[in-house]
């Protein structure tokens, strides 16, 4: 994923952003192509692997981006501004969906978990699917630093900038996120450690 970032970012310069601010559809297409996979990945991991929901949220993010790009004054990095938009939209949309989720749906999710303990629920899935599921189940305040670190490849300082908190808070939330992943996927320890 970091490789993707490095390959795509050089194509987006100040000129492209200015053209987007002028409403240039081709410039916007260029910007969309450069960031679509990473934005979509952030959304997929925020919505329990639901690709339809992730696609919808990705569109929302780019729509917001296009309608509000005039507000970008260049005071921070463009990517920081974009990451904030992604994080806020994902969290808002999760809240909105939670409010609109009927009682029956909530109950169904919980009973599925109770009937199948994690070991059994995960045993037939591939390792990457286990990780996707476990990441999705993290609380947003732990999940977002993990995604910004591993999907976007940001440093602690950059993550702190996006989330509006201190580096210490980022370190602490990543610690909790890592521990939670290790606890949920402890049964994969041998596969991960010996399989490398």
């Amino acid at each position: 994923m970091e490789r993707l970032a490095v390959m795509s970012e050089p194509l987006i310069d100040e000129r492209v952003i200015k053209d987007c601010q002028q409403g240039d559809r081709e410039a916007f297409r260029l910007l969309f192509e450069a960031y679509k996979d990473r934005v979509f990945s952030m959304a997929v991991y925020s919505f329990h692997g639901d690709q339809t929901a992730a696609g919808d949220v990705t569109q929302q993010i780019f729509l917001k981006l296009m309608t509000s790009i005039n507000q970008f004054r260049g005071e921070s990095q463009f990517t920081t501004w974009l990451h904030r938009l992604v994080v806020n939209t994902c969290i808002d949309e999760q809240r909105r969906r939670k409010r609109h989720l009927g009682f029956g749906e909530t109950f169904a999710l919980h009973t599925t978990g109770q009937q199948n303990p994690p070991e059994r629920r995960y045993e037939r899935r591939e390792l990457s699917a286990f990780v996707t599921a476990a990441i999705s189940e993290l609380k947003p305040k732990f999940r977002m630093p993990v995604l910004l670190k591993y999907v976007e490849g940001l440093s602690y300082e950059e993550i702190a900038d996006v989330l509006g908190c201190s580096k210490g808070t980022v370190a602490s939330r990543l610690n909790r996120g890592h521990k939670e992943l290790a606890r949920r996927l402890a049964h994969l320890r041998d596969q991960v450690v010996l399989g490398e």
Partner: protein
Amino acid sequence: MFAKHVTKDLSAYCHGELSPHDASGVAEHLIGCPRCRVVFEEIKLGVKLAERLPEKKAPDSLWQDLEARLDAHASAGEFASARKVASDRSIRTTARIWQPRFLAIAATLILALGLGAFWFYKQESRPSWEVARLNGSPRIGSARINDKSRLAIGQWLETDNVSRAKIQVGSIGQVEIDPNSRVKLVQTRPTEHRLELARGRLSAHIWAPPRLFFVDTPSAVAADLGCAYTLEVDDEGGSLLRVTSGWVALQLKNRESMVPAGAACATRREIGPGTPYFEDSSENFRQALSKLDFEPHDSDWSKIPALNQVLMQARPRDTLTLWHLLSRLEGADRSLVYERLAALSPPPAGVTRDGVLQLDDEMLKAWKAALESTWSNDSGLRKAWIKIWTGALGRVKGVEREK
């Protein structure tokens, strides 16, 4: 000594986000503090799992759907002014841009830029280790090392029959490469440093928490549990590990040998690690063990002479070998090993004959824990280990990017 635990810094330590001074402090604390080491293992697993996050590709249809929504917004007037400003230019440029020859040129340029950026990134950012020439003319790839050089991930370091080299393993130790050897740097990151030894011999001195440094050989993986050892690989891919300080684990699939200081262990292709033995054991003992481990046995009867030799020659210290044999032999052979082991060092409370013969994991671990004091002097070792570590702090360097 452990008043200030380091658990809150462990993710930052794994990601290389701490200053060199703080990172050294964390590493030093981890060596001496079992409680923080447990948390470190947990964090390390979390990091390794998160690194497995697969890339998600956005569906191809996303742009068309988005464009439709953009048009809907635009027709509602939201983009009216912006579109007006850009429309003339867009119409003109779009008409030109979509001509086939312009498309072909643009695609070629984008591909070249992408490949260029990728190549540049790979060259610039590959982590590497410092290599110093000790003797002769060691090579990295086809380039001779005059004095110092750097070994990047994926590169091979080779020595001829007179040359030797020393590798600085990130911030955690040093490895000396003897003549006629071939090693590759497979991985280096805060949670894992890994070399591949295809042939020849290396001597490793590692001052880091357990299971951070690994050496792959054709017949097993050596996992460092601290501190020093030599590992030799022959032309057939077999290897011989000799531990001079601390512990090393040799692994292949589910077969593992734990080798303490003063002991050695051989490995063979397709078989993996043999049974560890102390180097001061008798010649007969070692020959018989080698037969037991690696020679084909056409029938159970052919094992008996070798097993008898091992059991007869075993001293209290050789319970290291007997304990490992328990899980490698079956039926009557396992019973014979149990009897001899129990005679040399009776099992502790709670460990039963039946449990051991059925390979009850908890009982085997309990018996091993009771035996370990005869295999190594851990308190003395730990003191020495910390001394080496502390002394080394001032001169080690972190993993640096290749310049």
